[in-house]
């Protein structure tokens, strides 16, 4: 399909995280994952729960259908009926994620947010990640502070799962024997070499790497006319 932007392929890649998820809460953090979650609910995941970003569960037209203040949100996390897509300031080959600080934790070079809910998320509900600018600063050999727990540190925790990492270059998963990050699909226009150059560790690259699928005509219409007519997605990923 011609004329599909990189941001729109990213939306599709994020939306696919919630395919077949059933009646669970989609917690997208960031503009592109938010458009993706709404697209999923509009199309192939109609039972998803969405929030208004505050304390309410809302339908696609904004109809309030429930109340979810922070403390109930935390119970929902531990109940497991949620799939969150978080950001990552750093992420390593096993999916360890950092949003707390850069440098030595005791006296950081750059203080960031703090661990937030990453430790509880990763031990309780599926946790995916969204990285709008794929670079060696983000995809690092070793994160400075493990907030979200990766496969090598989860020790087989019973509810631990990192379904996917989506960046502006492609989609990544951990479907390898050693649970190391693998290139699952390339966004159209991106080369394997480009991904390798932007990644600070050895990525598993299969012989055949598929392309991230195109949106259907109806999905493209929903993204452009219904969900994100003001093109907020382009603020995270250039058109």
């Amino acid at each position: 399909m011609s004329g599909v932007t990189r941001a729109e392929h990213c939306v599709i890649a994020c939306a696919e995280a919630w395919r077949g998820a059933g009646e669970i809460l989609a917690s997208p953090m960031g503009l592109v994952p938010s458009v993706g979650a709404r697209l999923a609910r509009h199309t192939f995941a109609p039972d998803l729960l969405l929030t208004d970003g505050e304390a309410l569960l809302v339908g696609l037209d904004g109809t309030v259908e429930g109340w979810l203040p922070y403390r109930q949100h935390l119970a929902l996390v531990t109940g497991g009926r949620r799939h969150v897509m978080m950001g990552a300031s750093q992420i390593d080959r096993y999916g360890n994620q950092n949003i707390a600080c850069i440098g030595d934790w005791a006296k950081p070079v750059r203080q960031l947010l703090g661990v937030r809910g990453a430790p509880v998320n990763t031990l309780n509900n599926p946790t995916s990640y969204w990285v709008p600018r794929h670079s060696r600063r983000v995809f690092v050999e070793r994160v400075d502070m493990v907030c979200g727990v990766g496969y090598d540190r989860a020790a087989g925790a019973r509810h631990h799962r990192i379904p996917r990492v989506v960046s502006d270059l492609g989609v990544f998963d951990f479907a390898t024997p050693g649970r190391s990050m693998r290139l699952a699909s390339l966004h159209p226009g991106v080369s394997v070499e480009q991904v390798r150059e932007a990644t600070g560790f050895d990525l598993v690259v299969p012989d055949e790497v598929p392309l991230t699928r195109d949106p259907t005509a109806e999905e493209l219409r929903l993204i452009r006319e219904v969900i994100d007519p003001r093109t907020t997605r382009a603020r995270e990923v250039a058109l």
Partner: protein
Amino acid sequence: MSDKTMTAEEAVARLASGMTLGIGGWGSRRKPMALVRALLRSQVTDLTIVSYGGPDVGMLAAAGRIRKLVTAFVTLDSIPLEPHYRAARERGAFELAEVDEAMFMWGLHAAANRLPFLPVRAGIGSDVMRVNPGLRTVTSPYEDQETFVAMPALRLDAALVHVNRADRLGNGQYLGPDPYFDDLFCEAADAAYVSCEQVVDTAELTKAAAPQSLLIKRHTVTGVIEAPGGAHFTSCAPDYARDEAFQQRYATTPWPEFAARFLAGDERAYRSAAGEGS
């Protein structure tokens, strides 16, 4: 029954250096800023602050009042990273006890229930365990044998929270969408000071709002402070939204300049300087 109304200065006069203070709200939402401003005008220092952090933490950190901070994050919401907090952390100004959002909540629950700890499925495998080496784990005594973090109680010497309405006895009401954890902060504390937009008669509280909005119960409250605009510049829905312009000014003004301009005088002077005096 006793009238618990007092001024912010009277509340702060009951606090002492070295105390552990819990501060309610979340990020840059419904923070008890009038009480924080009164605290900044006092000499109280060397504090352990327990907070889902916003500008309360940023201001106290910038002013050098924090010895230790217990938090899962510090943010201004619409400005993701709190600049004064960042600067203080990057110069190693205080000790940080970094815990996850859920660990924090269970620490308050433990304190409120007079338990030494509560088990939580969070923290294990993360660097929270490395940077907080004092954290212990417990193994389930049942067949599953799972290992959990034993989150220690976050018992507080005092809690500071801000709500929409309260009566003179200490019954506090929130009218916004989220209670945050303010009732838990009060229950986890030896003394709780509740500021509010407006003190009303008890009967007024449920004239227009459902009894479920009565978040804070008077037996957990020591002092009630009427502080209109008391959460400014954070949000206090539905009474007012966050003052984004003022928050931007806070975030971009060097701390000494901000403190001199807005915090040198009393609360009335603050409101006047912030353009809310009229």
